[in-house]
């Protein structure tokens, strides 16, 4: 085989297996997802709302979404580098069924296929400019991920118990998680207290370790999470809830597919092997009868022991029209500070050996806006909900609450288009 062909073949091999960090749900977050999906009050239609108690209907949901990141601008990328970023096709499926007198079971499956290039490491501008440059990986052709979550609820007089089990699988990655939780109501169901615990185990076996011997062959991590919340009805049209979530992670928390530029050479991404995170989320739902609209306001404050802090505020307005259509504009503002060991690149190595130039650990703000339209209709004894939505997300160091000295060149913006179908039967 000629040298040119060998190189092409190697690049093709590299292209086939790539970074999937962005696809990887942390086990902890998936465990929480188990908590939230099973602790939910079942939504129904305005016309025939399902109960907050044991559901009486079967419900099936399907949703397709296409996620596409903006290409990274040429000025931010190393010369000759890939500028096209990630594109993902997501299929989601969910089924909920009442079982016997006081149980229900839920199954949620997500399958994604993705392709594209992702950030690899950041270097100073070789032309001597102020702004650092992003070195991208080569584009992948086809990656896939499957996520399964099984959850169940047990309804008692004034309380509900829930449990969840899930797993996630990709070419180089596997995770499983479990959760247990409960909620109890007081005060004629005006006050509800919820709590739960979650656990997850993630195993990664990075690919291309023969090409990149710095990559570990096999690493794992565990996450433990605790959740407590209280929901309060404030009036006929208002309810509010606030909750605290704590997550402890230990193990391999670095990204095996990323590098950091330290003292003029790229070295493997190195992060601490423990992390403690706290999130305080408050949500308000307020209905306005006269205009048939409902306001959602969500605010979250987050902090961890990597010195990161973030604020999130989400607003959505649900406008019902003619009793069967709904239009939902939404807005989100997000701002995070950086991890203490983060830097775009390192002139001298840190004494603790940590190094990470991942934009996810950098300081930035993000603004996103979306619009969703849905309608419901009935055929025989089946109730259908159909929806389409579009969301645009833009991140930028200038949007952050605190001033940022150096923006990470890898910050991402994306479009998300989706369509969904729900069936009650």
């Amino acid at each position: 085989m000629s040298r040119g062909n060998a190189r092409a073949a190697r690049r093709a091999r590299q292209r086939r297996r790539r970074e999937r960090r962005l696809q990887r749900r942390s086990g902890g977050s998936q465990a929480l997802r188990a908590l939230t999906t099973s602790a939910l009050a079942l939504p129904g239609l305005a016309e025939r709302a399902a109960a907050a108690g044991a559901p009486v209907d079967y419900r099936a949901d399907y949703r397709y979404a296409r996620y596409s990141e903006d290409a990274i601008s040429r000025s931010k990328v190393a010369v000759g580098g890939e500028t096209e970023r990630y594109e993902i096709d997501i299929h989601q499926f969910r089924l909920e069924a009442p079982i016997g007198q006081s149980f229900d079971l839920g199954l949620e499956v997500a399958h994604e296929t993705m392709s594209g290039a992702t950030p690899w490491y950041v270097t100073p501008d070789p032309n001597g400019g102020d702004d650092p440059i992003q070195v991208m990986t080569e584009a992948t052709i086809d990656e896939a991920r499957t996520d399964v979550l099984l959850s169940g609820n047990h309804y008692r007089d004034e309380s509900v118990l829930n449990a969840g089990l899930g797993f996630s699988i990709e070419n180089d990655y596997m995770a499983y998680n479990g959760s247990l939780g409960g909620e109890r109501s007081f005060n004629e169901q005006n006050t509800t207290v919820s709590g739960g615990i979650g656990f997850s185990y993630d195993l990664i076996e990075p690919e291309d370790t023969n090409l990149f011997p710095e990559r570990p062959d096999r690493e794992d991590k565990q996450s433990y999470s605790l959740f407590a919340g209280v929901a309060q009805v404030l009036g006929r049209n208002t309810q509010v809830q606030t909750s605290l979530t704590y997550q402890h992670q230990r193990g391999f928390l670095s990204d095996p597919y990323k590098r950091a530029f330290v003292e003029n050479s790229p070295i493997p991404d190195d992060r601490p092997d423990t992390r403690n995170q706290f999130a305080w989320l408050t949500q308000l739902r307020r209905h306005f009868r006269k205009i048939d609209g409902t306001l959602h306001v969500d605010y979250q404050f987050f902090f961890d022991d990597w010195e990161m802090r973030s604020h999130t505020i989400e607003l959505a307005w649900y406008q019902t029209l003619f009793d069967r259509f709904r239009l939902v504009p939404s807005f989100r503002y997000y701002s995070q500070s950086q991890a203490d060991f983060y830097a775009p690149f390192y002139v001298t190595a840190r004494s603790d050996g940590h190094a990470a130039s991942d934009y996810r650990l950098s300081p930035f703000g993000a603004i996103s806006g979306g619009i969703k339209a849905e309608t419901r209709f009935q055929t025989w004894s089946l109730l259908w909900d159909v929806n389409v939505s579009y969301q645009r997300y833009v991140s930028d160091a200038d949007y952050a609450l605190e001033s940022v000295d150096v923006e990470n060149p890898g910050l991402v913006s994306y479009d998300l288009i989706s369509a969904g179908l729900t069936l009650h039967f």
Partner: protein
Amino acid sequence: MQRRIQKLRLALVALALWLASASLASTAPAIELGQPAPAFSAPAVDGSQISLTDYRGKVVFLDFWASWCGPCAQSLPALDGLRGEFPDSEFQVLAVNVDRKREAARTFLRRRPVGYPSALDPSGEIPVRFGVQTMPTSFLIDRDGVVRHVHRGFRPSDVPELRRKIQALLAAGR
């Protein structure tokens, strides 16, 4: 980090206090078994007047429902079925609808009609008198107008138990 832990502690204390105050708040006094059912009189969907006392001498199944309540929607046809199992002269099913808009109840019943009358109570006076604590709630009232059974919530699998209780009340007395 220290300050944040302090704030967390503060938040937890507030949560605990909130809980305490919530559980102390008064709830509706529930009707006790063996007490006479509160009398009421309200217009039905068809315009006629429904008074509970008119049904003395029959076993009455009184069901509180609303169009926005999922389990309530399930209970209506189930109760209609139960009604058909017993003679009209002995057993009566009555419903009280608590929708804020009477039209919502009318629309619901137009789509899913039942063979028993529904009294409309948009102001919610009647459920107060009966001490309704959850939706739906139904009351089994004997021939002398005394509450014998309170059934909270509804699931299709509740029907056999309800049937047994109705049969027991029909057998007792007369």
